[in-house]
Structure formats: C-alpha cells, structure tokens
C-alpha cells in the first residue's frame, strides 16, 4: 500500500511535532509513508475567502505531489475535506479524481483502512475531545448532535484505546470553536467569543488537555488558553495516539 503524508501548511510551519507524531504513528502501525517534498497547501484559505479561482496553483502543485498513491493521509479534517470536495487541477481530472477518492483524514484512515483495534499508547490525563466541524459534518468522522441517528465517533474510538486516558463530557458536544479560516481575523470578536466559550466548557469539566483532529482549531483555542494563562494545554490527536511514555 503506497501511502503519502499530506502535512497541512500551518502544521508544517508552526506545529511540526504534529507532523512528526503522525508519521511515527503511521509507521508504528506498519505503514510505509512517503512525504512528497514539494507539497505546500491545499488552497483552502483562498477558496473559503471567495478566491477559489486563485487556488489553481495550489491544485496543480497538489496533484504534482500526490498523484498515484493508494492513499493520501492528512492530520486535518478541514484540509482533507477541501481536497475531497474541491481539488480540480486544470486538464488533470483523472489524477484529481483519483486523489479526491483516496484522501483520508488520519483517524478515519486508522479506523476504516487499517482497522486498528488496539494501540500501544498511554496518556493518563483528563482530555476533552473537540469535534472539529469539517471533519465531523463534512467527512462523517463522528455523528453530529443535529441529526437523529445512532451515535459513533472515530476519534473517540481511537482515544479509548489509549491507556489511562479519561475523556470528559461537555455541555455542548459539537459546537464550533470559532476559528473558521480567515473568519478568525475578519470577525475577530465573534471568533474569540466562540473560542472562549469552547475553552470554558472544557475547563468546567476538568480538561487538562484539549485535543482535536485539526490543529487549526487547536491553534485558536491555544491562543486563548495562553492569553488566559491557563494550565490547560492543547494537543493534536496524533500526538496522543502516538504517546508511549509521558
């Protein structure tokens, strides 16, 4: 199985430890992972701001980097969803379509493709799981509270395999954190209020760590936590699943 790792641009630049944890985790699970060296960005920042027409350069570069793998795995629900819905390099529809059909977010790759039933991971802490919206409602990583349907959660399923972890309940299980791409600065007041409320919900229920499948959400929540000088920290789910000793 030829698997390529797609590292979101802000993870590459600001949270390399998440990329490292993802790589190490996949290798531990027996996957041989390629890391295409010229990858940059999926183009979502432009597209979500209404400038989808400017993302052809990113699309082109993405197809150059990721064509012809069996799976492309990405530790971000929103980047994965963006590629799945919108990747269309001009004149390269076959390759684009192949990638769209084979890109997986990290947790769904582990549960659905690798079908892992146990993990050799230990993280004895109280952890709040933040359900990032695009992963949840877009990729179907977990059941959303809006619909009347049986509950499930792929990230939670994996977290429960981690020794010592205590997952906390929240008042609002899947409300948006408020990051929203450029929204975080164009609607700064509402974005921050949403983040403050999310953080408060986690802290109220005793979270030592807030985790999620999207570092963008966590970057925003971390900015608020650190401004509050809170002891609660953020950590990407890859880092928990990869944690052997702590």
């Amino acid at each position: 199985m030829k698997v390529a790792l797609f590292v979101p641009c802000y993870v590459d630049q600001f949270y390399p430890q998440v990329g490292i944890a993802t790589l190490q985790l996949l290798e531990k699970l027996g996957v041989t992972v390629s890391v295409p060296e010229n990858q940059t960005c999926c183009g979502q920042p432009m597209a979500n701001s209404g400038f989808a027409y400017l993302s052809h350069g990113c699309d082109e570069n993405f197809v150059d980097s990721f064509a012809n793998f069996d799976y492309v795995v990405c530790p971000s629900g929103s980047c994965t969803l963006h590629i799945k819905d919108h990747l269309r390099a001009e004149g390269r529809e076959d390759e684009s379509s192949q990638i769209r059909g084979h890109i997986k977010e990290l947790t769904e790759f582990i549960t659905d493709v690798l079908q892992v039933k146990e993990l050799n991971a230990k993280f004895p802490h109280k952890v709040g799981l933040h359900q990032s919206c695009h992963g949840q409602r877009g990729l179907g990583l977990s059941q959303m509270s809006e619909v009347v349907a049986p509950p499930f959660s792929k990230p939670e399923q994996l977290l429960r395999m981690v020794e010592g972890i205590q997952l906390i309940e929240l008042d609002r299980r899947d409300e948006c954190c408020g990051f929203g791409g450029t929204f975080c600065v164009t609607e700064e007041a509402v974005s921050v209020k949403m983040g403050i409320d999310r953080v408060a919900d986690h802290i109220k229920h005793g979270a030592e760590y807030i985790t999620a499948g999207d570092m963008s959400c966590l970057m925003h929540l971390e900015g608020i936590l650190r401004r509050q000088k809170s002891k609660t920290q953020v950590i990407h789910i890859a880092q928990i699943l990869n944690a052997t000793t702590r």
Partner: protein
Amino acid sequence: MTQPGSPQIPLDHASRAEMFNKDSSRVDWHDETLWFVRAKRDRAVKQLPEWESLREAASTIKLNVLDNLHDYLLEFERQAQANGAVVHWAETAEDHNRIVHKIIADAGVTRIVKSKSMLTEECHLNDFLEQQGIDVVDTDLGERIVQLAGEPPSHIVLPCIHWKKEEIGELFAKHLGTTPGSSDPGYLTASARVHLRTHFLTSKVALTGVNFAVAETGEVVVCTNEGNADLGVQLADVHIACMGIEKIIPKRRHLGVFLRLLARSATGQPITTYSSHFRRPRPGQQMHIVLVDNGRTKRLSQPDFRGALKCIRCGACMNTCPVYRRSGGHSYHHAVAGPIGAILAPGLDAKEFGDLPFASTLCGSCSFVCPVKIDIHNQLYKWRQVIVKEGYVTNSKKTGMKLMAGVLSRPWLYTSGGKTGRWLMRVFPWLVNNKFNPWYKQREMPPPPSISFQRWYKENKS
C-alpha cells in the same frame, strides 16, 4: 437599545457583531437563550425515529414544487378564485406594497392589524403604509414589542429574543401604561392582551402571512401560538394574505409532513397552538391573496442557489448558528437574519449584503437542522465566490489573497517565506504581537518553531 440603520452605526456584520460583543455578559445571555431553543428542538425531534425521513420527504416535495411552480401557481389561483378569493400578482416589493395599500384604501380604513409575515418585512410594507397614512398594528406580541421600540425584529420566529424582560417592562410602562418596574412576563402579556384586543375589535382589515398555500384546494395555512392571526381575520371585513410564490405545496395531505416538522424545528413544540386553514372567506368578507416574486423567479434559475427557496421560515438555522447567537439578528441588517438570511439577501443585493456569507465559519450545523435540507453551508461558500467575482471585496483583500496564492503555490517561496516569517517572529516578536494584528487582540500567537516539519523530515528521514 441602539437603532440599527442610523448613520453612526456601520452597516457590515463584522462591525455590528463587534459592537454586540462589547457587552460580554449580554452576549452570554443571548447565546444561552437561543441554545436553549436549539436544545428544545433536539429533545422534540429525537422523539421521532422517522425524523430524518420526514426531512427527506419535505425536501423532495419542495423540490418538486420548485420544478413545477408554474403549474402549481396556476392551479392554486384557479382554486382560490373558485373559493371566492381575489388573487393578485406582484413582481416586486414595490408592487406588493402598492397592491396591499390599494386594498386597504378601497376598504376606507386608516388602520390595520397584521400578524407575522416575513415577506412584508422583506418588502418594508410597514414603512410604506405609514408613509401613506396607514397605521399598522403588529399583533404578534414579539413583533408588537419591537414595533413599539421602533426596531425591526431580530429573529423570524422570536422577534424580540434580544430584549430582556426588564426592558420590555419599561417599554410597556411608557406605551401601555403598565406599572413601572414590573417585569413579570405574565403581567406584561396580560396587559398586551387587553391593549391588542381593542385593535382586533376595531380593525376592519387584517393582514396575515402564509405558512403554506395548498395548490390542490386554494387554501392558505397560517400557524401561530397566540391566535392573533385568527382573531384579526375573524373580526375583520377584509383578509389580506401575503405570500412569496415559493410557499406553495402541492396537496393538502403534504401538510401531514410539514406540520410535523415546522414547530419542532422552530421552538421544539410538536405543533403551534393554531394551524388555521383559510379556504373561503366568511359570507360578506373579502379575501385577498397577494403572490409575490421579488427575485424568486430569478433565484429559481440559479442551480447553485435555488434550494434556498425550499425554506419554510422556521428559524432553526438561527438558533443553532454559533455566530448568530453571538452577534444577534440586527448584525445582519436584513429582515431575515442568520444563515438563511445570509444566502437569501445577497440574491436581492450582492453589494449591500455581500458581507453576510462571510459571517460564518462554515461549520455546517444549520444545514443539518434545516427541516427541508437546504445545503446552507454549501451555498454560503458559493456566494463567497460570486461576491468576490463581482468585485464586492476590498482591493487590499484581493491583493493579499493574490500574494498568498502566489506564495502557497510555489514550494521554494513557501519554504523560504515560512522560514523567514518564523525567524522574524522569534527574533522580533513585536512585529506580530501588537495591536495592529487582529489575531493578537485577544489571543497569543502560535509559538514559531525553529524548523518546519519538512526540514525535520529532510534532516532525519530522507
């Protein structure tokens, strides 16, 4: 209570939302009140295992209506006329207002009662009639409150959700003569009952909205909890029912789907107190039905956006929207606010309402509470592309995006740009940690690492 639309207040959502957020505890109150309504909705719908099938059925029926609207409207008109109603067709908001005014003028009155109608808000009917010397009394309690305050409603179902009871108490003391300082909802409601009953008994003309118009029978269905639509109509000589053309449903039995979805989605009730089917006017009474286009036929021809015409105006999208709850309906500066407003308004005027599709994180919650399965979050994304293409964004944003796209699509530029940026942040943190950086206002910047993942990979793995 600030007056939206007055010159000192900026028009765009982001600015208004920022002002709304200055009073953080009030935002908490507004947010919790609306979340409470969302939670009631959840409890109500989870009692129906067939809920998702109902949504699918409603969506399918509405899509059928949109595809065959020409034929259904003709059938509706034929039936309504056979029932003794007069059917009017209005292409624009202005046409609608003129038609309604003429009916009122022909009745020889200068005051009417009106129950809730988002369509009349959209057409700014009240303002138009006031200018013609017609006094309009909104009889829905929430609408009457905002009317007395000189404001538009902030929510299509809960018009004064942004008002606290103490503030309503003050308003009633001023306008209805209630005891100053009293804020008991029971007392205030009872006072409004007496005040509005006088209007019901003295108004010869009653205007209502239409929740559903049945093509098969020509009847119009109006749903209220208060009974104000019914009291108004049954005591009046003239009933004017105003509706957007998309409010049609094919058959009476389809109400068996829609009336199971509407109130549960809106407020978590299994049904509104009254679901009244007006088919034929009382002997001696006139019934007028005004069918309004106002951009709906145009929207019908837009495949990306026509789905918004399925809307049954339940407001569920507003209650669930984390942005609406923390910015309030007036931040949307439009009759219909929230997620559905953000995809309807730009169709009327992309310049004036071009800010609305950006007032969202695209979380998608709205689409999944929508009883008729409008893909609101997808339409928000698509509207953004249209608004940018039509040029309704600032030049600085355009330039910034072009720059970003240029850097992100060139690996060497991305790598060196990222490295330089992080270096600058480490060595000169004040470059970004300052008041000109909107991120930094209330959040710390992410710590800039010394190497990127790609660099680490090169050095350690490949």
